């Protein structure tokens, strides 16, 4: 069903005679809206929770914000306009102000300003919009929904909703997720009106809308729904169980993540830690180097949020396919074989030291390990260790606390590192095998070249032998070894990895429980 709203034009700009009357109309409308918001807040508190209800608290502050209120009353007084006109005009000004901010979250706040402005206009009799009266179950298609409207949706009738504008950052999207209503927000495209009343499917996970789906699509979606239901079952069945084979071999299952926002996944999928935290994102999408303080804030958050579980943070892996302008790196013919990762860090020690210092400081707030990428030689490891020791000394001199037992490990992702893993094992506390690069460098197959996809086969005996050699050499020196590349989640290899004696597998979060089930059956 398509629910269209009348275009929201500015109320007529007619000169009013009685300015005082308009002022008091505004004040009355403000009081009414405030009371409504208090009721909504109470409803949200009861139905969803404190965190989500807080937005209606903010809306109350917005309706009474002095800049907003003075803007409106001044406009009424100086231009002799109606209360409705002044509210619409000033509301739009504030909404525009947020829409122009450089941060996506703040841009999304313009929707909150429009929400309260509209509520005032409804009370002032300018907009008629007081809930939907639905008689049957529908997928609602609307230009946009405000948080208050979303909360008031009749959950027994609304199967899901699609909005044309709005962002996934909006409180509407957040409320929909919390309420468990499938929603696709901000399609940017108006749906054809003749589709109203016909069959449609929405996929809130992928943000897809299917209009008039054929039988095959319908079947596919039903299967997908069943699959998801099954996955949910895994979640409940496998959660809390140890990852252990029938023969009693224990495997540690961790997750690979690259954003602070993904941290809750550790708990959600019952992972035993973070096996690979890619630290690049803090450096990407900005104009200059992050400060030590910025890095520290992020790392501390990682450390503190895992509640005693370990996070292995990989030091900077910039270069190759991940380029950042402010590093001023020269263009390279073969970036995958060029100045990247640990090579760059050793050549530009100031950058490296700052990251290590932030990591060490954060280690006082939880369990952190440091992992160096792209190692090819013993000398690199020794140089990096010397820098780490120097940074530790400085911290001691500054009386800043850190974990003196912090573990240092390396990625085994070059054939060179795998072949000399016996020598490297004597220098570090753990290995983590990065299969993606190991495949690329062992088989001389460019990962970026789609034509060669089939050749980039992790099942190639050369790759598997290097993995086995690495595991054996690690165990001879008494250190543990994990696999953190994509192959770690490849269920066709799990039995082999377990037989080789791998200690840890680190995978994308939604694969953890699938692997646990598989390993428990081995």
């Amino acid at each position, binding site marked *: 069903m398509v629910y269209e709203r009348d275009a929201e034009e500015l109320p007529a700009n007619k000169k009013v005679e009685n300015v005082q009357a308009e002022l008091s109309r505004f004040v009355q409308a403000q009081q009414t809206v405030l009371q409504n918001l208090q009721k909504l807040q109470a409803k949200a508190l009861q139905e969803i929770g404190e965190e989500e209800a*807080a*937005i209606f608290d*903010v809306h109350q502050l917005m309706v009474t*914000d002095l800049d907003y209120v003075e803007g409106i009353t001044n406009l009424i007084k100086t231009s002799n306009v109606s209360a409705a006109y002044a509210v619409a005009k000033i509301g739009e000004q504030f909404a525009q102000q947020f829409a122009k901010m450089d941060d996506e979250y*703040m841009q999304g706040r313009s929707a909150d*300003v429009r929400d309260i402005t509209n509520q005032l206009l409804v009370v002032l009799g300018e907009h008629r919009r007081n809930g939907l009266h639905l008689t049957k179950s529908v997928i609602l298609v609307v230009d946009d929904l405000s948080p208050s409207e979303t909360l008031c949706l009749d959950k027994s009738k609304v199967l899901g909703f699609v909005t044309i504008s709005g962002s996934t950052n909006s*409180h509407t999207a957040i409320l929909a997720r919390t309420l468990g209503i499938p929603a696709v927000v901000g399609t940017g495209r108006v749906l054809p009106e003749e589709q109203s009343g016909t069959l449609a499917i929405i996929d809130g996970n992928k943000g897809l809308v299917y209009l008039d789906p054929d039988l095959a699509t319908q079947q596919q979606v039903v299967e997908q729904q069943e699959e998801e239901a099954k996955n949910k079952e895994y979640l409940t069945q496998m959660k809390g169980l140890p990852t252990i084979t029938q023969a009693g071999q224990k495997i540690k299952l961790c997750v690979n993540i690259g954003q602070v926002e993904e941290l809750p996944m550790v708990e959600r999928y019952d992972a035993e830690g973070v096996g690979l935290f890619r630290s690049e994102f803090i450096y990407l999408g900005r104009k200059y180097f992050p400060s030590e303080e910025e890095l520290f804030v992020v790392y501390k*958050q990682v450390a503190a949020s895992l509640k005693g579980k370990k996070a292995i943070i990989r030091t900077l892996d910039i270069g190759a396919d991940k380029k950042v302008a402010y590093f001023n790196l020269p263009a390279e013919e073969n970036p995958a074989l060029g100045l990247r990762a640990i090579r760059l860090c050793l050549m530009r020690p100031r950058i490296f030291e700052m990251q290590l210092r932030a990591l060490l400081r954060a280690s006082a707030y939880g369990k952190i390990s440091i992992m160096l990428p792209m190692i090819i030689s013993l000398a690199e490891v020794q140089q990096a260790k010397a820098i780490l020791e120097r940074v530790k000394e400085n911290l001691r001199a500054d009386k800043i606390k850190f974990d003196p037992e912090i573990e240092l490990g390396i990625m085994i992702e070059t054939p060179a590192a795998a072949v000399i893993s016996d020598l490297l094992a004597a220098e570090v506390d753990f290995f983590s095998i990065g299969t993606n690069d190991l495949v690329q460098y062992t088989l001389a197959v460019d990962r970026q070249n789609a034509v060669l996809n089939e050749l980039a086969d992790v099942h190639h005996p050369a790759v598997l032998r290097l993995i086995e050699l690495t595991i054996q050499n690690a165990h001879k020196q008494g250190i543990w070894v994990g696999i953190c590349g994509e192959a770690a989640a490849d269920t066709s290899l799990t039995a082999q990895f377990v037989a080789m004696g791998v200690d840890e597998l680190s995978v994308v979060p939604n694969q953890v429980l699938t692997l646990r089930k598989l390993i428990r059956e081995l």
Partner: protein
Amino acid sequence: MIKFSFVIQDKQGIHARPAGILVKTAGQFKSAATMHCNNKSADLKRVFAVMSLGVKAGMLVTVQVEGEDEVAAKAAIESCLKSNL
């Protein structure tokens, strides 16, 4: 007049909810309260102004309070920053 500084730890910066809490806290006191960040400043009793500062994680904010109950106001605002941001 009292001044103090604080580095924002919350990864989302001063977003809507903590902005609301700050404004409510500042509003309980008679003293004027101003937040400075990024060469901009905002009246801590005005929610739109505080949000418009666009304060992000890792940024340093300076708060200035002035008035008869400035000591209590400073303490309340500081503890509000510490526990929410």
